């Protein structure tokens, strides 16, 4: 390269170097992911036994398992998604099938996009003030699920909207040509075609809410007992993990809980992508 100084540096060498730098950055990012997953699984996987998953914690979590936290996570996340999915999909249907871009949809879009930017701690504060205190639901499964559903709503709206927009217009035109009404077209043609994309969005929302801590800790509480009703407080997995780790109750059980969380998140995300890929393969 030196002998080419007159013409400036050899651009092909520069190009190769920059490619290496950028590839290095990408490898580093993936390296961080691999490091986190391996680190947690390496220390936590041996803790995760059938009895760890099926027993109640003893001595504040120092011993025993994480069964109530698993139940808590399933209840809070499940109900949050049951609330947010219909609302989110309906919003997406409205935005795509029932309006052109004028004032009302712009307001709706402003609402969902603003919600997407709000930090989870603000959702936690709001849920605490509104559901826990104002509506007097207390720290409960229901308060946690309602707050969480508000937080994941934008994700579901956005992914459903993308999925619905990807449905070819010809499908709609054929349906209308056959004399279908708008709603018949939506339920008979648009939604079935967009379903894999919608499912992916919902699954990703499950993944987001299962790891959420700041919202849930102020709305669902930290009780270690099994809930008897939706108005009972619960502790979810990330909250349990946070308390174990931060208060130094049991590092071993913290690693075990983190391993369960990481596995859940991996399974959920990989499921979401395989749905997308199968969909992409079929439409090809």
């Amino acid at each position, binding site marked *: 390269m030196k002998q080419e100084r007159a013409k400036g540096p050899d651009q092909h060498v520069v190009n190769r170097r920059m490619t290496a730098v950028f590839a290095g950055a990408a490898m580093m990012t993936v390296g961080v992911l691999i490091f986190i997953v391996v680190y947690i699984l390496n220390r936590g996987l041996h803790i995760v036994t059938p009895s760890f998953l099926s027993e109640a914690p003893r001595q504040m979590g120092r011993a025993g398992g994480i069964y109530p936290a698993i139940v808590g996570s399933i209840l809070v996340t499940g109900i949050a998604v049951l609330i947010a999915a219909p609302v989110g999909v309906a919003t997406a249907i409205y935005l795509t099938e029932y309006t052109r871009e004028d004032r009302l949809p712009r307001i709706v879009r402003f609402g969902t996009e603003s919600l997407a930017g709000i930090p989870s701690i603000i959702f936690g504060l709001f849920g605490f003030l509104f559901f826990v205190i104002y509506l007097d639901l207390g720290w409960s499964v229901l308060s946690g699920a309602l707050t969480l559903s508000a937080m994941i709503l*934008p994700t579901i709206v956005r992914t459903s909207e993308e999925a619905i927009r990807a449905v070819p217009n010809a499908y709609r035109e054929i349906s209308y040509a056959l004399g279908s009404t708008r709603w018949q077209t939506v339920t008979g043609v648009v939604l079935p075609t967009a379903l894999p994309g919608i499912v992916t969005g919902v699954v990703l929302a499950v993944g987001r809410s299962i790891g959420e801590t700041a919202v849930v800790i102020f709305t669902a509480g930290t009780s270690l007992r099994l809930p008897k009703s939706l108005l009972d407080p619960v502790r979810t997995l990330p909250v349990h993990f946070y308390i174990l*780790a931060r208060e130094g109750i049991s590092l071993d059980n913290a690693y075990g809980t983190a391993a369960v969380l990481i596995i859940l998140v991996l399974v959920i995300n990989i499921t979401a992508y395989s749905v997308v890929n199968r969909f992409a393969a079929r439409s090809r």
Partner: protein
Amino acid sequence: MRYAVRYKEAIIEKALVVIALSAIAVLGLIILFVFKEGSPVMARVGVIRFISGTKWAPSRGVFGILPMILGSVWVTLGALAIGVPLGLACAIFLAEMAPARVSSILKPSVELLAGIPSVVYGFIGLVVLVPFIRRWLGGPGFSVLAAAIVLGIMVLPTIISISFDAFKAVPAAYREGMLALGATKWQAIRMVILPAARPGIIAAVILGLGRAIGETMAVIMVAGNSTKIPSSALAPVRTLTSNIALEMGYATGEHREALLATGMVLFVVIALLNVAARLFAGGGRVSR
């Protein structure tokens, strides 16, 4: 029969409108409740004194959040200093340089990184990063630096996926034109693609900024949470979000109002950032 059908269609349409307005209704409720509960203490202490006060002593009724504002600023700037170059480099590689098969593996991995719960990031920071900083750089380990590194990694998925989309949105003709002129890929990226993707990149940075400012649990676990203004990158720090999360569990009365007022400040900052992102993105869609 026909009337029945038309009637049903009309009802469904109205119902959809009502449901679609729920997001804006929730937004309204959030603003209403946080501002209603937080503003009395703001009014009593005075907005200026509240945000410029350097002492936070809830038990004595002294509420100044300047240390937390500065804490959020330092931690967030540090996170961006790490996350932006790394994230942009990663996005450039994925969008412009990597073979299709490589990027089809890397892209989902980046999105998996977004799926890892923030408490897990905080925990890794706590057990790996904090001892490392304490051992090799000094100080307590719980520090601005630790929080900045953890957040820098956590904003990567946001920065990568939004700037990736911005690169992909650059028309292929730009790229091909450069390559046809004999430019290398890097020349094409530097001279044409980066400038063309600039609005999207700025939006990515601003949204990453928003994520970093809003993150709570991970920061609490590694930042040390001292209410003093940090004197160096190795000093402990408390951010706006951690101030709320740390004390909300037991706060009552005026103290709780002061935490909600902290939430108000945070909310306003995030709102301004979103407006900025929208402006820079040129009216394009902005979402996480």
